[in-house]
């Protein structure tokens, strides 16, 4: 049986990448989308069964809420986890990781949050210069 698949929907590359890497290290196959629209494209493609969608609430147009409604209506076996902040997203990723196929978490989800915050701070410093 192939590893469970998670689709991460997050606009910010500096947030999405560490979350995706974390979940890969927990043993999941991870697909990435930067918007709810792209997420729907991946889901409708259907070439891979997605077990969990981890989406930010505000993921463009359509919103994360609209994506969640669509998933519940069309893919009832797919679980949807919505997150409103980066901290919530990493916490929920930690929860998913604990349930994941890997025997143990490679590192605590708070390390992921610290890492994301360092990346965002570096970006903001670059934007100012």
């Amino acid at each position, binding site marked *: 049986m192939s590893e469970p698949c998670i689709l991460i929907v997050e606009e910010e590359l500096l947030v999405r*990448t560490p979350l995706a890497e974390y979940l890969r290290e927990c043993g999941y196959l991870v697909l990435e989308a930067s918007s709810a629209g792209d997420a729907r494209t991946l889901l409708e493609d259907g070439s891979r069964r997605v077990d969990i969608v981890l989406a930010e609430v505000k993921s463009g147009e359509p919103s994360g809420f609209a994506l969640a409604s669509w998933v519940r209506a069309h893919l009832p076996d797919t679980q949807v986890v919505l997150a409103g902040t980066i901290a919530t997203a990493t916490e929920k990723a930690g929860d998913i990781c604990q349930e994941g196929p890997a025997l143990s978490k*490679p590192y605590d989800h708070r390390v992921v949050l610290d890492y994301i915050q360092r*990346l965002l701070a570096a970006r903001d410093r670059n934007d100012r210069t």
Partner: protein
Amino acid sequence: MVPQALLQPRPARILVVEDEVLVRALIAEELRLAGFDVIEADRADDALTYIGAGEQVDLVFSDIQTPGSLDGLQLAETLRDKYPDIPVILTSGNAPIRRVGIVEAFVPKPYDVTQTIALMSAILAQKSPGEPL
């Protein structure tokens, strides 16, 4: 990336810039299966932001037509000026009209994934002879 930095040897990290999500997902998955660490960006701006945040990238594979303020060619030009050690491969469904000579290679779309990955491996091997990819 925190976990990868702890692993020796570190797999080469390839930043894929492609706004077509199905195309990006396919090449990213095949690259990961081939043992690479893959960063997925749908805009050239995001790719530059990622590198500018201090993250190490060993090779950039970018579509030329990307949304946002930078296209793939402008990304390649910026990388050549600011990060000349990062090789760049560009791809497009249209023939490039200018300055494609500034990059290591141009791959026309639709591309053969296996051959494209072999090309990336060859460029990375040339960049760091003797180092594991």
